[in-house]
């Protein structure tokens, strides 16, 4: 019980400390549109490639190639064309900062 109470107060303290003004950034919101297929925060558990931990430049370049048709694919050439270059840059920055 004592241990439980101790843990409880630690958790409460953590709850209070974490509560300062969260902001959902445009990067977070845009990157989250990719999670359904590429896994939460870009960490895939299956045949679709992970994006977490890739360099921002490589993601931007890959998406640009999908857009122009230089790179072929099944679904990504169609999806890449739906995002602006500025949005792709924000998405790429977010995934480059995630742990693979």
């Amino acid at each position, binding site marked *: 019980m004592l241990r439980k109470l101790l843990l409880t107060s630690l958790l409460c303290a953590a709850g209070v400390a974490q509560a300062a003004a969260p902001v*959902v950034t445009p990067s977070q919101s845009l990157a989250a549109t990719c999670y359904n297929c590429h896994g939460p925060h870009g960490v895939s558990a299956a045949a679709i490639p992970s994006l977490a931990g890739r360099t921002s430049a490589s993601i931007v370049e890959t998406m640009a190639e999908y857009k122009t048709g230089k790179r072929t694919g099944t679904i990504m050439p169609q999806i890449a*064309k739906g995002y602006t270059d500025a949005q792709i840059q924000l998405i790429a920055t977010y995934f480059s900062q995630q742990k693979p």
Partner: protein
Amino acid sequence: MQSRRKFLAGAATVGAIGLAPALSGCASTTRSAALKGKVVIVGAGYGGSTAAKYIRDWSNNSISVTVVEPGDAFVSCPVSNLVIAGAKSLQDITVSYDDLRQRHGVNWIKSTVESIDPAKHTVKLANGDTLQYDKLVLSPGIDLMFDSVKGLKAANESGKILISMKAGPETLALRRQIEAMPDGGVFAITVPPTPYRCPPGPYERATLVAAYFKQHKPKSKVLIYDANDKVQSKEPLFKKAWADLYPGMIEYIPDHKVVGVAADRNELQFEVNDPVKADVLNVIPMQRAGVIAQKTGLANMNARWCGVDYQTFESAVHKDIHVLGDSIQIAPLMPKSGHMANQHAKVAAAAIVSMLYDQPVNPHPVVMNTCYSMVSFERAIHVASVHQYDAEKKTFLTVPGSGGISAGLSEIEAHYADAWAHNIWRDSLS
């Protein structure tokens, strides 16, 4: 780490039934000191589960989230046609709610909602409890319009004619009917007028039942009676699959709207055409927003679907109620899909966090849809679209030149379809 996790698990369970004085002490202290608001979420399918997770995550756990859900576990509608065809089990498409409760600290109430008072911001549950909310998220899925097909309600309740548009016991029951059907029998499926849940779903089901017949009952046939004038999704690809993989097995009949069934004779009755008999009937009726959305007066579009502000998914009728998933009036070319419900939920979650913190909401939300259909046990096809919010028109619009369907019937896309399912389940539920 293990003991902390165990402890958290205990906290979630005990907290839910209100028997932990030490913990409720913490909760109330935390609430007054730090909690920024209370969100109640009704329904834990693709929309509700995702909203619960992301409101917790994106608020750094500073917003309390309580989910009201009658089911014991999440059962996926996407992939359920593979269960009907015998290639997967119900277990394969079932995911526990434990991570939402234990890892994300979501309060969980296994019940249903009786009524909502939008003015008082309260929700009355079937178990007698009343919950107070600052924001309410409704993701109740679809209600089947039994009135649209005479005789269907009784035939469905007796288990004779199945619908199977909500994954679970009916998925298995339809599987058993198809298994019991003799070789040389006929399976007939009907497609309701659009819009309905999962535009490619009925066609995928017909195709996979044919895949099962091809292996086990090669003299059998599949009939698709469509109330619409054409296949509603991935049309050229389904037609290619039917011609190339199942020649002579699948017959597609457009412009046939089913209006009645005679279960004792296994008969479909149409608006204008002659009745048809088949060994197994799978009748999919018209649909509308989930019952609780209608009861609350939220289904303001044709008395069927809920109009929302697409920037926040807040109801057009009542403030502080956000509606997600299949229940909403869709923006142009936006399908009613699990993938889309997950994307609605993320836009709504970000908006709810911002609104509860008196911050401006994201002016440019983006949602996208990816939908794979299996056309055999080895090959799949897809449709994809990207929808950008247009502030002037106040709706989501697809980006010209983006989106599209597969180039052909693809083996690699069957692997992607499987990966999609596992990743979206992780994204929505873990």
